């Protein structure tokens, strides 16, 4: 809402050019508390990401390699769509498949995945992200 964001811009970023005249700002003052309260409940719009982590998604090559391994493990037909968001469970992977996938990834990338982490790998993207994190840690 334009009004809402105008209020926040006036209060929190005085350097921004306020688009409202003083009259309008005065009018809105009574709504300020509610607006701030509302703001606190919502995330700040610009940080619109699922994970508040600085490192962004894994490299496309990593995702690609993960997809290849998953496709091979699950013997997926060529027409099955496989993206970074694909969930292993939706592709027909059971627990043995998931563990085999993790093992293949370990061999492919030369890393070791702890049990706690392997339990949290549910999508291709999550696998790729974890791999890059572990590869980085190993290189360091």
């Amino acid at each position: 809402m334009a009004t809402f964001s105008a209020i926040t811009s006036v209060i929190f970023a005085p350097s921004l050019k306020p688009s409202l005249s003083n009259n309008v700002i005065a009018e809105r003052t009574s709504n300020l508390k509610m607006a701030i309260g509302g703001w606190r409940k919502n995330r700040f719009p610009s940080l619109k990401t699922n994970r508040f982590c600085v490192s962004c998604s894994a490299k496309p090559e990593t995702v690609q390699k993960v997809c290849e391994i998953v496709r091979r493990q699950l013997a997926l037909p060529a027409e099955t769509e496989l993206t970074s968001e694909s969930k292993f469970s939706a592709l027909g992977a059971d627990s043995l498949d998931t563990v085999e996938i993790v093992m293949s990834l370990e061999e492919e990338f030369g890393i070791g995945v702890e049990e706690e982490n392997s339990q949290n790998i549910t999508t291709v993207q999550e696998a790729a992200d974890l791999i890059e994190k572990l590869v980085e840690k190993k290189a360091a």
Partner: protein
Amino acid sequence: MVLVLGAGCCFVKGYVVEHLLHFRLLAKLSQGRMFSFVSKRLSLMMMTKVCCFQRNFSSALPPLVPVKLPSKMETHFWYVLPDEVKSESLLSQYSELLSPREKKNLYHMQGDQFKKSALLARVLVRTTIARYQTNCQVNPRSLKFKKTIYGKPEVDWENGDKWCPPPLHFNISHTSSLVACGVTVNVPIGIDVEEKQRRLKNKILAFAKRYFSPDEVKLLTAISDPEIQRQEFIKLWTLKEAYVKAVGRGFSAAPFNTFTIRARVVKMGGFHHFDTQHSEASEIVVESSDDPENLTRNWQFALLDLAGSHYAAICIEKENSAGGEAGVPMRLTVWKTIPFVEDERVSGTGAVVPISGLIKQL
């Protein structure tokens, strides 16, 4: 004993009801078409002939045959063979039993065979639990499920405060060719089923060295025949999975390489490799390197050859906390079912062959 829901009488809450329809016909409808998810309903012409004066869950499906809860010392095991469920209309009616979230999950699954077994897994758990409500009828569609903080599924009983939910525990497992649900009362249960012909993509010993305990690796390494080695691997995998699922705290709480499962000959001391000839005499035990105390002595196992095609492992907690009493068998009843169509008790038949563990089939 085969219970066919055909013409007959059914006593429900004091009402005498006469079924006029032979419900077995449901299974024979739609001659062998490929299962598809177009949810058109077949004309319910046949169903309207049913004169049923009891409250029906959906207008089309007959009531489930109720079953008494297992006693404290018993385990019930139900399974469905997806290949035996061919009727598209039945499958369509099954999908009506699912919650919106389950339907959504199903929608996103890829692969017809896999989708079908996933559907049957939800239907099996809902209908199985609904059977046990002998005091008041429970609609399998209305059951709600939740997960413990560790992620283990359980029933979310929602009824009013006069209702005391049964201390029922369940666990499911499925492959694309078999769907199973185990039920106990008072004690946790974990099950795992795996196709006997399952092959690993990785090398067995490399996999075992990475994930299994040193003693288990030693045991597998000692097997020279690769086919026997593969079979023993799969059996061990199902037992370990069943254990972790029974404990219910997830993979990370009981990493596979921190515990050893082995067969032990009862009353003779010493340890023994899985011995198929003397299955009645060998007990399966779990030992934990993390926890050498009593916790691991509280678990009882059974390993079965199911329907000639699968290994099935069952793990339950022993009732008495004194644990270690050796020689007490797991009392087990097994049913093969097509929910709403047919139930067949198969324990004690060729469909259920004990491989290992102390089992008494009922």
